[in-house]
Each structure stands twice: as C-alpha cells, then as structure tokens.
C-alpha cells in the first residue's frame, strides 16, 4: 500500500476534524461531535483494503471512517451543519450517516446486528461483499455485541469486527470497565482475533489486508483489536484525562509517524491539496 495515499487520507481526516472543532467554536455547528483525532490510522489502514461495495458500519465517532471510505467532505460537512446537501439531508447529523454501503448509528452496540444482517445478506445473495463494523472499547459493555458475535460465528457470516480500543469509554478508563481481555471475548465465540498496538498505518493496513482476505475467502467472522488513543476529548465536552498522559501519547501521532516515510516535498504537496480542498468545502458548505 502506497504510504503517500494513506497519508493523504490521514491528513484529510485530521484537517477536517480540526476544522469541525473550529467551526463548532464559531457557532456553525450544533449538537455534538465526536472527533477522530489520533485514531486516523485505524480507519485508513482498514478501509484502504476494502472494495467499494463492501459494507462499512460505524458508530458515533464515524467521521474518519466516512472520509476514509466515501471521501466526500462536502456532503459530510453539510450533514454536520444540518444542510440539505448533507449525506442524509441534514436529518442524521454527526452520528447518523448513510451513503451507499456506509451506515452509522449513535447507539452503542446496536449497529452490530445491522452489520451481521448486511453480512448475512451478502452471503445470502452471494455477492462477495463483506461487512466491517467499527466499535470502541466502551461498546464491549453492551450485551447485544455478544449475541451478535455468537450468531456471526455460528452462522459463519463474512463480518469483520474492528475494536478501536482508545482506552476510554467516554471518560471512564478501560481498567474500570473491562474484565478479562478483549481478545478472549472473541475467542469465547470461536472467532479468531488479531490484536495490534500500532500507530503505523502501514502496519495496520497490512494486518487488515490479510484479515479481510480471510473473511472474504472463508466467509467467517474475524476480530481486529486496534489499541489506539484519541487526542481530542470524547465529544464537545471537557476532557477528564490527565493532560500529561495525553501529551505523552502525542509522540504516537500516526500523522507524524507516516510523515517519516515521506519526503518533505510529498508532504507539502499533499498538505497543500488537502488544505485547499477543506477550505473550499468549508466555504461551499457555509454558503449551501
């Protein structure tokens, strides 16, 4: 996988999310938003290996997945602004997106059955599609997750469950909420799972590629646990984490890690293109 292509998507997500926070401060957005800053390599690494007709189901923190899969910044921003050019005409807002085979919902865990149903449909119709569902570590508290893992394993559904473990369920650290281990939870249902602690998009992408190929070929569910970290707070609310901890994690910024693989000129060129695009989209969206 070409690092510059992956970098472009990471940079695009980062720039867009920062812009969203800025627009929020300026009063152009209402409600709330859960930014993806810090976790970009996960979405980009996994989704870069999907076919365009595969199903992607995401959660409340979905902008990064959307940009990585559908790349339509204008439609996304309009949706956040509640405008009719939004992906859902402004009805859904930040947490409720739908575009082609991309779906998100703001209820924890409830999207797993949807993803499993889509995987069932793909298998039933023999289309070769797979379904990928992104959940966070906090979602592991929901019972329906395990109902679905059980069924997906038993019925051999082409479903990839990606757990982005950013260590916090909103404000509560995982040490207070999670018993045992995440991978054991997959294991309990006879689902193979790979755990990866990496901020390197190439490493994530490579791991995801082999897993996605296996899901597609075997038509069996698979787990991918990505230990990660978000730099921004959970949503628009204040951040209860220790600032020193957040600061220390900055050295694992996937953006900088990817930049090390590129030449200065490449970075500049990509940043220029993305900055222009984001600026243009913001202006368009504000006028829409």
């Amino acid at each position, binding site marked *: 996988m070409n690092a510059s292509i992956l970098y472009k998507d990471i940079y695009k997500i980062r720039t867009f999310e920062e812009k969203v926070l800025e627009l929020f401060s300026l009063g152009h957005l209402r409600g709330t938003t859960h930014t993806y800053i810090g976790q970009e390599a996960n979405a980009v690494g996994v989704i870069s290996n999907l076919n365009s007709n595969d*199903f992607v189901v995401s959660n409340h923190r979905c902008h990064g997945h959307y940009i990585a899969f559908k790349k339509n910044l204008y439609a996304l921003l309009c949706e956040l602004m509640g405008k009719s050019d939004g*992906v*859902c*005409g402004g*009805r*859904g807002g930040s947490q*409720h997106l*739908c*575009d082609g085979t991309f*779906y998100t*919902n703001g*209820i924890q865990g*409830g*999207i*797993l*059955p*949807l*993803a*499993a*149903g*889509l*995987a*069932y*449909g*793909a298998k*039933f*119709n023999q289309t070769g599609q797979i*379904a990928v569902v992104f959940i966070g570590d906090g979602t592991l508290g929901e*019972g*329906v997750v395990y*109902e*679905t893992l*059980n*069924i997906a394993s*038993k019925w051999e559904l082409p479903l990839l469950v990606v757990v982005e473990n950013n260590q916090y369920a909103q404000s509560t650290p995982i040490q207070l909420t999670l018993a045992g281990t995440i991978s054991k939870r997959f294991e309990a249902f006879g689902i193979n799972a790979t755990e990866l602690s990496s901020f390197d998009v190439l490493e994530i992408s490579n791991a995801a590629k082999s897993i996605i190929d296996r899901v597609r070929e075997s038509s069996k569910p698979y787990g991918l646990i990505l230990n990660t970290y978000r730099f921004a707070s959970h949503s628009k609310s204040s951040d209860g984490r220790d600032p020193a901890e957040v600061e220390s994690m900055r050295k694992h910024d996937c953006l900088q890690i990817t930049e090390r693989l590129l030449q200065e000129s490449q970075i500049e060129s990509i940043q220029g293109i993305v900055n222009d695009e984001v600026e243009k989209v913001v202006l368009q969206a504000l006028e829409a």
Partner: protein
Amino acid sequence: MKFIESIRNGLDSLLGNYPEVVLYGEDLIDPYGGAFKVTKGLSTKYPDRVWNTPISEAAIIGMSAGMAMCKMKPIVEIMFGDFTSLGVDQLLNHLTKYAWMYNNQVETPVTIRTAMGGRRGYGPTHSQSLEALLSTIPGLSIIAPSHYHDPGRILQQAVLEDSSVKVFSEYKLLYPQELQTPNTVKSGLTLDVSSDVYPIAHLSNCEFDNPEILIISYGGNALLLEQVLLDLLIEYELSAQCALPARIKPFDPLQIQHLISEAQVVLVVEESPKCHGWGAEVVATLSEAGLLSGKNVFRIGSAETPIPSSMAQEEQVLPSAAQIMETISQILV
C-alpha cells in the same frame, strides 16, 4: 380453515413464490415447528430459508434490518410478544429510524411476527399484549388481525407491499379458531369485511338497524366481543357493532367514520393496559376528527398490574364480557 393454518399457508406462499423471503426465530424448525406450531413443516420445505436462532431477540431483530437493506424480505418470529421488549432498542433506535434518518436512502421492510395475549395461564411475563407499548414507537406499524379477517392474506400483503417496519401480532387463543366468513359467522351476527390492504372487519348483531353501540377493538378481543354482541342482543335486545381494524397503527379514523354516526355509546376494548393505551389514542384521534361529540365514550383494557397465572385472578385483570356489559348497561339500560 383455522387461524394458524391461514398464517402458515401465508408463510408457505411467501416462501414458495419469493426467494427473497426468509423466516427465522427461536425453535421454529421441524419437528418442533415453533412454540405455537405456526411454522410446522416450513423448514422441511424451505431448509435454506427457514432457520432457528439462538435466544437473542435483540440480535435477530437487528439483523433483519441489514438483510432488508440487502433486498431480502425477512420475517422474524418472536416466540412470545413479551419478548419483543428485548428487541425494543433495535425497533426504536435502529429499525424504525434507518429509512427516515438516512433520508430514505434505505428501506427496511421487516415483519416481526409474535404471539400476544393472555387467558392461557402463562402468567405475568408470557401473557401480555404489548401492542400499546410498541405503538408508541414512531414509524412502527402494528397489524393484529382477528379470525374475522384472512390473516394469511394480510400477512402476505404486509410482507410484500408494506415497506414499513411491522409487528404482526397473533393472539394466542386465535390459533385454533376457525376463520369466519359472512356465511359461517355465528347465528345472530353479521360480518362485513372491507377490501382494503388492511381490511376492517365489521361485526354486528343486527342486520338493518343503526346500532346504538360501537365497539372498536382488534385481534383476539374479537373472541370476547362476539360473545358481548350476542349477550347484548339476548339480555337487552341492544343493537351493537364491532369494528376490528386489521392494522391498529397507524389507526385510520376514516375506516371507522361510517360506522360511528348513529352510535350513542363508543367503547374501545384492548387487552393492553388501559392506562396510556391504544384506546386513549383511538378516542383522541376520533375526537380530533370530530366524530365523538355527544357520545358516551369508554375505554376498557387490562388493569395496572401484572397478569396473574391463576385463571380466576387473570379474569379480574383482563377485560371481561361482564365488565363490558356492565359499562354499556349503565348507559343504555
């Protein structure tokens, strides 16, 4: 034909003619054939499209949305209506939201079949009629035919032609009942069924009179109300009619309009709790349509307690013919 056979035939016809139709739920494959035996024989005939699930109501209801988005027509059986509560998050926050929330980019034509109602001695958690509870979920249609309808045909049309998320409520005591037609209806009663997709069955104890009593109800309550109509006739010679819409939500006052004008007493009968119930919605809707002025209006539903297992106690909690007779006779006798 019996109510249960009609539904089974409806399912058979759907599976036989439409490869996108699938049917799944708990314990419904042969030889068991479902807790109420509705699906008996179907898994043998359509092994790839009729299957058993784990006891995971939320997941199996939720998955139907994904299947529907893949152009399948899923029919989910929830063994007891009481268990739909386990899938309420899926119904409320997922299935009924998708189409609208996603700006109509997707459709979720899902049918949830479930057995509702008491009078079988199953006690507090296996006897409820949750139509009223479920009816508060925006966008959820609720279909509850009686043995005066053709439930198999209604089920087929619901699955094929209605793109909304639907709960298809089957009253347990109706399963062994013979379906009634204008020719087979009990002596003393007349029956007229409209030709709508969701027909209204109109049962009456008088042929030509304009009855002074209109009872609006649905589903298995028809078993109670056919007796009430006869009792009113035999005890007091009061003429009464009963309107049984097959689809109770959305409730269409236009289906009732022509029946209501002569009525002095309008009763809404349901087995769901009366408090905040379907009856309240029906009365309010009819009132807003200007159809209730000057009429005596009553709601009859179950009491605000769990449904007891004991038959004698259950009779006190669920609506009874005696209770309905007493309500009417206080006004008209």
